[in-house]
């Protein structure tokens, strides 16, 4: 009987261990990642598909001084959207709330990097864009942006180790100041 009790107790302990274990795993692998990131949407939707008739370089271009336009500012948009070009809601917001008021659109950058990172597109211009960015060629609807509540990093923010690995492979310098400012 004592033995049975023993056994029973053992099973109880085992079960509660498993409950704790699996519970913690669920919290850790499912709950935590969802809690850690907040979800945001772009101020207005930008359909890359709708802009396929322009070159990418129309908005994402190098300046003569070697810098890159990145996400373009509204002067770029204004070139076509001085007046509304359709009657979608996004278009209205774009024209009325930003272009006409000359307000920059607060795009959320997916590849956001912290202040201390220096990233320049110039040395990377021979790489495919999709090596680091999502492929937007078929994109109608901007995906939501997930932002780490603690660090401000996006879920899509590339971590240092990626940069280092690629640099190492290509023999590019991994000296600190190459990527940090």
């Amino acid at each position, binding site marked *: 009987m004592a033995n049975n009790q023993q056994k029973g107790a053992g099973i109880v302990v085992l079960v509660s*261990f498993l*409950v704790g*274990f699996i519970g913690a795993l669920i919290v850790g692998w499912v709950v935590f990642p969802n809690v850690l990131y907040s979800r945001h949407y772009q101020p207005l939707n930008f359909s890359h598909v709708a802009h396929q008739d322009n070159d990418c370089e129309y908005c994402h271009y190098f300046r003569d001084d070697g810098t890159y336009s990145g996400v373009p500012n509204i002067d770029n948009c204004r070139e076509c959207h001085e007046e509304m070009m359709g009657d979608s809601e996004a278009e209205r917001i774009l024209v009325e709330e930003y272009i006409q008021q000359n307000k920059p659109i607060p795009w959320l950058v997916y590849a956001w990097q912290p202040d201390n990172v220096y990233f320049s597109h110039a040395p990377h211009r021979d790489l495919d864009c999709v090596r680091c960015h999502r492929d937007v060629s078929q994109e109608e609807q901007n995906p939501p942006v997930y932002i780490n509540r603690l660090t401000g990093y996006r879920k899509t923010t590339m971590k240092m180790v990626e940069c280092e690995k690629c640099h190492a492979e290509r023999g590019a310098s991994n000296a600190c100041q190459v990527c940090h400012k």
Partner: protein
Amino acid sequence: MKVGRRAFIGFVAGGIAGTLLSPIPWKLADDIAIWTQNWSWRPSPKRGHRAGVGTLCTMCGSACSVEVDLVDRQRAIYVRGSSLSPLNKGGLCALGASAVQFLYSPYRVRQPLRQTKKRGDRTGFKAISWKEAIGELGARLKKLYEEGKGHQVACLSGQRYTSLYELWSLFCGALGSSNLFAMPRETDGHSAVSQALFGHEGPFAFRLYRATGILNFGAEWADGWSSCAPMGRMYEEWVREVPGKGRTEIVHVSSRLSMSASKSNEWIPVKPGTEAALALGIAHVLIRENRVFRGVEEYEGYLNWIDSSGETRQGFRDYVLKEYSPDRVSGITGAPAAKIEELARWVASQPSPLVVWGSEGFGGPGFFHHEMAYVALNMLLGNFEDKGLCTFTPVTNSLKAAQGEESLAEERLDVAAGTSGLVGARSNSIYAFFEALAQGKGYPVDVLLVCEANPIYSMADAALVRDAWSKAGFTVAMTGFMDETALEADLILPTPVMLERWDDVTAVPGLPFALYGLSAPVINPLYDVKHPGDVVLQLAAMVGDETRRALPWKKYEDVLKAQVKFIADQGIGAVSDDKTDFSHLEPDKTPKKNYRNAADLLKKLKKGSLWYAPVASTSQFVKTETGKPRFFASVLENAGMGLEKPELLMPHFLALQSSGSEQEYPLLLVAYGVSYISSGYFPNSPLMMKNLWDFELKGNDGFIGVNPATAKELGLAEGMSVVVETPQGKARARVHLSPAVSPGLIAAVKGLGHWAYDEYLADKGLRVTELTEVQLDPVTALGVERVTRAKLVRA
């Protein structure tokens, strides 16, 4: 129970194991580290594209061209020198480099303020609209104008060689007031001397880049004299090993070892304020040894001359030979007689010698007779001949009072009050004006307008200034910053600061050629501010017909465009670029015109280029009857000055006449300036404060430099607290033992001890203007700051 406890332990163990196998601890450790890398309270620079745009720096009048780095064409973050100006050739001074700090300074005035309580009460300022502000001020002026009391309006301008000053001049003239002053500057002293000796009124100019040997009487060229960056470039030229010319040798004469003295090839220490005597001693040796320029004998007054009364008077030659023997001069200055002779011979041996002088190391104008001595020495060297190194600076200005109309203006207050000098209203004698105002002489001043200057803080003899200020009826400060003068104003009209506004330069005193520069805004004003020029134009529109006629422009911008058009219409001169070298400018070499029309010129000037004209030969300027310079001041003769003491017409040395007794005040205090501390309208930027030496400021304590020997006598040690006392006032300071000051002298740096602005500036260091004495020159009534009698008492 037991099972329960075990189960609990099992559960906890499972939880721990699970957690360890989940990302939580690891991701969190990493994320927390990342969090520390991006703390939200850590200022994060706004992102954007950085690119430069050219303009002209107008923090001082030196016409340095700069490039401003803007982020996304909105935020100014950095200013660098640009090589479009051949003056600074890409160099920049600490003040210019701080431009954006002033732009974004917390102590900027953001809207018009009206003092609603007692004048000077910081809590009394109330924000009002521009309409109210201009309305009130305009109404006052209109009333005075209409009552014919326009002369009771006085105006003190921080700018001088700019269109804004000319605008004030037109405005005051139209209003009927002669009470327009600029802040004191060294060149103030030049006008009377040049008028007296050359018949031309204007700042002296030097062809510094041509000199092979420079005899320097207290012009602290490495400490901010003339201008910081252009002088830096000049120094670079001087020390460059140029094949034909070698390096320029510099001999520095002064009583305190300044940076300029340290950098010169030789330093001749003299007793404070005796530089002019040394100059005359050298003149003596040159004449005695017959080492002077031949043609000087043709100059009136070199040899004996006949005065207006027909009497023969001793000429400069004999006067100097008689009075300024090396031995006597050695007695005055403390420099050995042999050294004086050696210097004279050295000067004479130079292919291109030049004598320059400054305000004897203390800033501001000098004594009339002393300046005459330096000019005379240059004359002896032939420097005022056409091939010589001295000439005058032309001013480029098209804003004149409408022709044919007589000025209706009343006499200036100091003239009216009798505090002015022999040359009367010819002189920018602001101290004489303040004296009259303080003493309530002449007529009352109803409105006192201060435009972008900070007299309350930066003028010496601060007590006098405060006294006069209290007498003014209604004080208006047009200023970008909440400075000491603004604190004392009844009405504060906020002005834009450098990168937000239009400005120009009509002349750079000291440069031997005409020059015009323009500074256009590169960003929108941050606050609800108005350009003083626009304010003046608006006031002019309000006040009356005269003012409307005299100031017909809508915007200050139009005024500058008119200036540019005026230049373009003349069609001479050229615009500088990064190849231009001003040292190649010669009277005979006309630069090739390289702008198409006014619009093109404007475009080029806006980028920071300078318009310049060829060097004017000296003889063009000389307007005496003989067409030659002269050695005596006929002005004074006319004013009856030379009657009792004939030498008063001649260059001569004036011994120190300080107030206070030598017994009570055994020491002499000198307030000196340095290049890295700003003592004018602009305070020190926070990043300039970073660079102060430990012997200038420590915590909030200021310092007084004392020669170690003097200190030993007084029982003072490094760092000790003392009270510095002069007849003017008292101040606490700590002792710094400095062999740079001569025994018996004590020295304090200018530009510290503000009480306005913010915590980064206020109450730091010694406010030396509370201590310094100003002497009014008998001829020009200019306030001359030399040494002040003082004593040190251990605190």
